[in-house]
């Protein structure tokens, strides 16, 4: 009996418990509004349904948020991810659009490699500003957030680059074994990042740098190198997200691709339990956070909430999630659990007192 309660308490105090509850509640609300919301069917050999849409649409956000998790774990922040996604997408689409055979796999791979390369350069730029010159991350990445948008537009000369490339389109809307390819990519990158950080010592070292940079340096960690690295990884993730977003609509729009995605990503990371101050990071939490945010957006469309009030609706849900996730908030509404007290060993000597 008490173990059951203790286990239940263990579950509710898990950092993902409340985000998951809200996620489920949102899905239930959708299902009540329209029962078919939860149904998944096989159409033309592809899984089809709102749930699949949510996961597919959250794929770019998951990617960006993964990189953001690592950056935030080092105590930094990367505001430039949206712009980087736009640049990477624009570079790839521009290259494809200039080739005679847009459907050639080689062309697409070259395009992706080009976009990826440019993104890595941009990530390195951020890394140098933060780790090399020591500019505060929020300002350092703000520079690229502004200039990167301009860069994306410069590449496309202010136009939307429309492409007609089958292989490229696959990144956004293709399918693999009935699953949307975007989901597969997001899953693969998540696994890759997880393996990269948790199967090696990278994760611990990142957490160490974020937890205490000076102590890490004195322990022999090349803190700057790690800081530099996370910004590059973040840009790489953003680039993949950028390919996905542009492939989704077969066009690159320097203005619209990844607009405000940085705020969503930061929100996803925080909902996932990673503190903005740096230190411990939780990739699983980040993924749940991203899914929650996309579910929120999709719910607005699926339940046809008036666009005029949809922002309020989102704000309220975000506030609720953040509140119930805060330990201090829950503490006020939770009965105090009784704690078993371990008796201390008795002290042999008697109490002595001397006269004053």
């Amino acid at each position, binding site marked *: 009996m008490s173990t059951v309660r203790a286990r239940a308490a263990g579950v509710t105090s898990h950092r993902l418990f409340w985000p998951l509850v809200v996620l489920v509640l949102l899905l239930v609300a959708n299902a009540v509004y329209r029962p078919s919301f939860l149904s998944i069917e096989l159409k033309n050999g592809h899984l089809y349904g709102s749930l699949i849409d949510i996961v597919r649409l959250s794929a770019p956000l998951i990617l960006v948020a993964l990189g953001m998790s690592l950056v935030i774990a080092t105590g930094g922040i990367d*505001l430039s991810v949206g712009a980087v996604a736009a640049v990477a997408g624009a570079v790839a689409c521009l290259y494809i659009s200039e080739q005679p055979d847009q459907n050639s796999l080689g062309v697409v791979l070259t395009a992706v490699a080009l976009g990826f390369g440019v993104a890595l350069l941009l990530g390195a730029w951020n890394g140098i*500003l933060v780790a090399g*010159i*020591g*500019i*505060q991350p*929020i*300002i*350092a990445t*703000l*520079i*690229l*957030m*502004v*200039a*990167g*948008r*301009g*860069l*994306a*537009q*410069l590449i496309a000369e*202010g136009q939307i680059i429309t492409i007609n490339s089958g292989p490229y389109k696959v990144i956004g809307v293709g399918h693999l074994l009935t699953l949307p390819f975007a989901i597969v990519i997001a899953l693969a990158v998540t696994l890759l990042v997880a393996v990269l950080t948790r199967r090696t010592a990278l994760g611990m070292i990142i957490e160490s740098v974020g937890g205490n940079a000076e102590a890490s340096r004195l322990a022999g960690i090349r803190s700057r190198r790690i800081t530099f690295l996370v910004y590059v990884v973040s840009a790489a993730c953003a680039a993949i997200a950028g390919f996905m977003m542009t492939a989704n609509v077969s066009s690159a729009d*320097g203005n619209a691709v990844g607009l405000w995605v940085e*705020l969503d990503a*930061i*929100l996803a990371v*925080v909902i996932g339990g990673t*503190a*903005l*101050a740096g230190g411990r990071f939780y990739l699983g939490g980040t993924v749940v956070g991203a899914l929650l945010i996309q579910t929120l957006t999709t719910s607005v469309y699926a339940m046809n909430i008036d*666009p*005029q*009030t*949809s*922002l*309020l*609706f*989102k*704000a*309220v849900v*975000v*506030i609720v999630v*953040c*509140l119930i996730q*805060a*330990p*201090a*908030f829950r503490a006020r509404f939770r009965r105090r659990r009784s704690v078993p007290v371990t008796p201390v060993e008795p002290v042999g000597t008697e109490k002595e007192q001397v006269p004053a």
Partner: protein
Amino acid sequence: MTTTPLAARPGRAWWRVPPRHVPVLATAALLLVMYSIGVAQYQAFSNIQVVFNVFIDNGFLLVVAVGMTFVILTGGIDLSVGSVVAMTAMVSASLLGNGLHPALVLVIALLLGPILGFAMGCVIHFFDIQPFIVTLAGMFFARGVCTWISTTSIPITDGFWTSAAQHRIHLGENFVSVGALIAVAVVAVAAAVLAYTRLGRNVYAIGGNQQSALLMGLPVGRTKIAVYTISGLCSAIGGILLSFYTLSGAPLIAVGMELDVIAAVVIGGTLLTGGSGYVFGTLLGVLVLSIIQTLITFDGTLNSWWTKIVIGGLLFVFILLQRLVGIRTK
């Protein structure tokens, strides 16, 4: 019994600038350089009205940045400012449109921002949630209120508002607007509050070390809530100034303004970690941003995307120089 290490004071000569003033002075110097470049390149730039215009055009930004300075000095951040500015302008416009007395509208509009700020401060303090997230939610909320009121921009035709907007206070051949004067007044009041009131000193104390401040018996919670309320108030004043400036309330106005404001505060030498910085620095930061923009407009040949790239580039050069100057003097 006095020993040398105890009595020794950190060396200081009259000509040496205290290190804490270096960022602000560096900003001021760089600002001068930029202004000189403008004057050298464009004839009309030397006109004094250009300087006044900077204040006229950035009054609301300045006021909001002052509020943000309070928040950042405590080590927090307030992302909701842009939305609160828009919300205030929207509420004013819509209430005026409904024929409410302007004085009453002014009171209501000036209350909304502080109330939201107070609420966010309470959540940050009592529930110990990161300011970034709380104010991000506040940003969504206030923007939501804007579109909820109306999706279209609402013109203001009220007599008081239009006269406040269009009245020109002449200084010789040139003029400033009412809004610019209010903004300058807010800067002065804020500087005085920070330097000469307990609240102001407590703001610095919390930014220095919140734990210590608590142990020293300072009202940490109250001060934290106060700075978000102040930021809300400044955003509300900024919203009123913006509604003077545009004589309307538009749901999408001031989108992304929070980033401009944060940039201005940081360029002005205030540390994002808190505890160090001045309102005067923030004033300089706002001036820097607006001079960059003025330079670009005067140039008048920049493409849309080049505008962004050049803004980013100038921002970079500026921060880099500031950083280099800072390192050298250390």
